[in-house]
């Protein structure tokens, strides 16, 4: 072999991409050729330089982490409203082309247009604050029928935001009071009858972002209070009463949200249950005194299926 070897062939050699006999001939040549030895050394240095450069990249920024949590929460909430009762979650969401927003129009800072519209459709507004992101639920003045699917989205975004949620105690419910758990939240949100579905879905999404909806079959939450400490939920007599209320209301359904808030201006507890094999997702508005013996249901809504 008399000809010099190209950088690409030498790189192929490093990657074991050359057949053994040919590789042996190339190596024999390189071992006797100063120029090819030098080139081989330089080629072999490239992956090391790439690996060195790789170490300089930043880890995932915290604001992106929050943004992705928000998107997942919103996707989950959207799916919740659309899940068929007989086979929860199996139905695909609308085709991407149907939900992909056009690249113009109103966009919330730090959130993609797609996520913005999904969040807006669910009646939630993401506010970028000085210290990061906060989630606040809002009354969306869309004139909609109250279902998430029918909200018109970004064109009718709310004007004012309510304070964010506060995390409260964890309530264990279900058989033996230990099989399921849900973190209560509280807010100053004033749920409206005409918009209850959209507002409830938005509240589920917001609660997920806040870490209140973290429980599933994998195990109970590890803590009972968040970084901000437990919320003041003075109108609840005890978590035991709430547990009884959930047992009475939810039955075998998983509870996605227990929010102390207002409903048409009066104190209320908003309970959202997930769809299961036999029942669609439900929104229950009950009095704060709801218990196993006296559920005090103020309003009940079955989330629409499209």
């Amino acid at each position, binding site marked *: 072999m008399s000809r*010099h070897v190209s950088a690409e062939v030498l790189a192929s050699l490093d990657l074991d991409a050359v057949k053994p006999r040919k590789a042996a001939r190339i190596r024999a040549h390189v071992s006797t050729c100063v*120029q090819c030895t030098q080139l081989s050394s330089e080629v072999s240095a490239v992956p090391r330089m790439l690996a*060195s450069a790789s170490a300089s990249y930043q880890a995932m920024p915290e604001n992106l982490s929050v943004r992705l949590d928000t998107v997942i929460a919103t996707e*989950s909430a959207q799916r919740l409203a659309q899940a068929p009762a007989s086979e929860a979650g199996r139905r695909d969401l609308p085709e991407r082309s149907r939900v992909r927003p056009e690249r113009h129009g109103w966009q919330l800072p730090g959130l993609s247009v797609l996520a913005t519209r999904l969040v807006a459709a669910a009646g939630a507004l993401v506010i970028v604050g000085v210290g990061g992101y906060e989630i606040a639920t809002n009354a969306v003045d869309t004139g909609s029928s109250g279902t998430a699917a029918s909200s018109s989205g970004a064109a009718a975004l709310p004007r004012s935001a309510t304070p964010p949620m506060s995390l409260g105690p964890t309530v264990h419910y279900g058989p033996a009071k230990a099989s399921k758990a849900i973190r209560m939240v509280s807010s100053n949100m004033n749920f409206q009858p005409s918009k209850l579905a959209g507002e409830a879905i938005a509240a589920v999404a917001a609660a997920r972002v806040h870490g209140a909806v973290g429980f599933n079959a994998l195990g109970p939450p590890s803590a009972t209070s968040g970084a901000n400490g437990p919320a003041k939920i003075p109108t609840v007599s005890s978590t035991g009463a709430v547990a009884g209320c959930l047992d009475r209301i939810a039955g075998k359904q998983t509870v996605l949200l227990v929010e102390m808030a207002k409903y048409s201006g009066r104190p209320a507890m908003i309970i959202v249950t997930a769809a299961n094999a036999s029942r669609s997702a439900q929104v229950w508005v009950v009095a704060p005194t709801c218990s196993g013996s006296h559920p005090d249901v103020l309003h009940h809504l079955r989330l629409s299926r499209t």
Partner: protein
Amino acid sequence: MRGGDDAVSDEELLRKHVAGDPDAFGELFQRHRDRLWAVAIRTLGDPEEAADALQDGMIAAFRRASSFRGDSAVTTWLHRIVVNAALDRMRRRASRPTTGGQDEEALDALATSGRPLSDPSGTSDTAIDVTAALRRLVPEQQAALVLVDMLGYSIADAAEVLGVSEGTVKSRAARGRARLLPRLAHLRPAAAPEQESLPDAGRRNQPATPRVLPAQEGGDETP
């Protein structure tokens, strides 16, 4: 590329998500998000584009979970979706008129890493140059080099993620390395003096010269 020794497997979490569990996907994504971000930011260079690609990929995975057939590990499937989202963005970027901003994007990506650009070790300057050079390769070569050389994936894993044969990954990586070489020449401090002492100095980085065995004719090296 497996999900590690978590109590619940990735496959089980994905199955739960498909069955309607509202928390399963979040748990699954939480496990892999840092690795997926690492792929996205290294492939695209620009943090904003990487964030959008990761979000696009995550939404696609959320919605297409029922299409997962188990032919590969869940983590491989997730990586493939994010890499494809990144490649889509790279191709769209390549189709747009260039404004000479690629180097600036690479600079921005590294400048936000929190490391001083004037690192006495020279690491940061090297990283900026390497990243800028990488951005000039075709997307497929970039992706191969990101997975294999930057993130240390095996050829087999990279092939699974990219949905191509191992031979294709090797070919793309080899061409990518070769094309990076002249663009990184200034980063080899020891090269210059040695170069002058060689009789064919200055020709080693010109693979098109007749005396150099061309890559496409690698088998024709008869003495």
